[in-house]
């Protein structure tokens, strides 16, 4: 298990390199550059060239990439060209907001999604199942920015229970967490329900019934345990998604965060910031997948023996 973990971590290095090249190329090949945001109207081409040279943007792309990568290897994310601050500071300022929102949303969708899936599966084809699954269908088809606006309208504007926007108090977290969490909860509930129904049809479950175990215990101790294996995979993939996918939601609720930072940097073509943000999101996806795989191995002895 330990050697597997180490092997998987080492494997992340080549993936990281490829991802960094892709990120670097995308942002540099898109038309426009940060200098347009720096120079004053009416500056001469000579002035512009001078600024370009100051940031090293006149050098060949390969050279620029290697400079960025070597700085990265030393833990230096560079300095924002337009925002004029160390990128590390910008990230450090915004990441906690994203982590709080993403973490809580993930927790919300995991706990409630599994609960909803279990309840639906244990009442298969019944009224409760249909009600839960209809709710889930709604949750998974609504775009999150739209859901966010509706929630603001109802709970912030009409009922005045929660603030419309910002990130000053814990109350301001409720609506964004709901907005992101509901979609995830719908996904988790569906996967849990299907996996439980599929597992319930297996031979070993029949034998558990034949051993005289109470049906509820079979569902919760045995069937659910198997049903959680695919759920863990989904959640692992969602860790990265929640961080990056929160962009629209952060925008709707005017919350600081990685997403907001990324949008702002993109519109200004602030290369170092965009690169750092995308790299953080890519890392989150990679680490999330790894975490999902490790938890799965911890839960399933068959996966463990396949590793060695």
């Amino acid at each position, binding site marked *: 298990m330990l050697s597997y973990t180490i092997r998987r971590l080492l494997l992340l290095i080549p993936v990281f390199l490829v991802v960094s090249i892709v990120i670097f190329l995308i942002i540099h090949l898109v038309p426009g550059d940060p200098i347009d945001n720096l120079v004053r109207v009416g500056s001469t081409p000579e002035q512009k060239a001078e600024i370009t040279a100051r940031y090293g943007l006149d050098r060949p792309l390969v050279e620029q990439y290697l400079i960025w990568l070597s700085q990265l290897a030393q833990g230096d994310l560079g300095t924002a060209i337009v925002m004029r601050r160390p990128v590390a500071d910008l990230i450090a300022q915004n990441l906690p907001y994203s982590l709080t929102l993403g973490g809580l949303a993930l927790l919300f969708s995991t706990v409630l999604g599994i609960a909803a899936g279990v309840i639906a599966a244990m009442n298969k084809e019944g009224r409760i199942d249909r009600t839960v699954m209809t709710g889930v269908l709604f949750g998974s088809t609504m775009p999150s920015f739209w859901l966010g606006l509706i929630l603001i309208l109802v709970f912030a504007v009409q009922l005045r229970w929660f603030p419309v926007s910002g990130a000053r108090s814990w109350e301001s977290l409720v609506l964004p967490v709901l907005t992101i969490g509901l979609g995830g909860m719908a996904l988790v509930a569906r996967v849990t329900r299907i996996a439980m129904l599929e597992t319930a049809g297996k031979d*070993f479950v029949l034998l558990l019934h034949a051993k*005289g175990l109470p049906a509820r215990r079979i569902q919760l101790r045995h069937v659910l345990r198997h049903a959680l294996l695919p759920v863990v995979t989904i959640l692992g993939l969602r860790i990265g998604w929640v961080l990056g996918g929160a962009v629209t939601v952060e925008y709707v609720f005017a919350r600081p965060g990685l997403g907001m930072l990324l949008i702002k940097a993109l519109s200004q073509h602030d290369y170092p910031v965009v690169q750092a943000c995308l790299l953080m999101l890519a890392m989150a996806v990679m680490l999330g997948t790894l975490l999902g795989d490790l938890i799965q191995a911890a839960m*399933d002895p068959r996966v463990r023996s396949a590793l060695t």
Partner: protein
Amino acid sequence: MALLDVQDLSIDIGGIKPLDSIGFAVDKGETLGIVGESGSGKSLTALSIMGLLPLIGGRVERGSIRFDGMELTRLPEPDYRRLRGRRIAFITQNPMTSLDPVIRVGEQIDQVARLHLGLSGSAARRHSIEIMERLRIPEAATTYHNYPHQLSGGMKQRIVIAMALAANPDLIIADEPTTALDVTIQAQIVQILGELVREKGVALILITHDMGVVAQACDRVVVLYAGRVAESNTVSAIFASPRHPYTQALIGCIPRNAMERGSLVGIPGLVPSVARYPAGCRFHPRCTRSESLCEREVPVLERLASGAEIACHVADKHEAAHA
């Protein structure tokens, strides 16, 4: 009064009726074979006795299942649950898929003793290892900690049998316990089951499609065809003088010594699907001796003086003729 007495049992699964008034009895220390091809309703018979039909959306429509004086068809689920695994144990068809893959096999045996005998953790564990040793599982104490995927098919089936034995049941229902195993392992498993009947006096219902296994292990045999009893008799009588054309055909399918290459024949055709049972005798489309009566009228199950039962219009029912 027999330990288990099934009479006139018909079941319903979503509007189709895969079992039509079947009946048989089995007593302590006795092995009853239920034979028939796939789709004849053998496994559903087992599920009916276990009271597990609701799991597949079925129910007992008519008839009675009496076990030790109790009418199981009217038994409330909590009482039924205390019977399952405790007094009536089940051995499933496929040992490869019958064990929970993420739980150590020993703990799966423990479950039964903890649930029904109220044994604590360590006592249940000693109990399980003892049963494993009795079933000649090598290095039982080590195997106890293995996961199912680390064991061979024959070993897994022994674990399933150990689970069945853990609470000292009175009746064991084994649904094709050897079908998924190698021939050599098959013989061992049949032998283990036979010893249980002889030494502990349990009643065993052995469901199989293999007449060879019947000959080796059973006292009585019920031949099922398309959800009905075709014939039932003692094993020695049924092999000496099979009366129903289907039984004769089944026995004809067993390879014998000195057979010529290519002379082994099967029964032409297939068991009809539940949705399309033919009228009259359900075997008549495949029967070599069918008459026009067979296409129209359902043959009733007649009980002969010797205790043999047969449902056929054309079979010879004179006992003296075979005596």
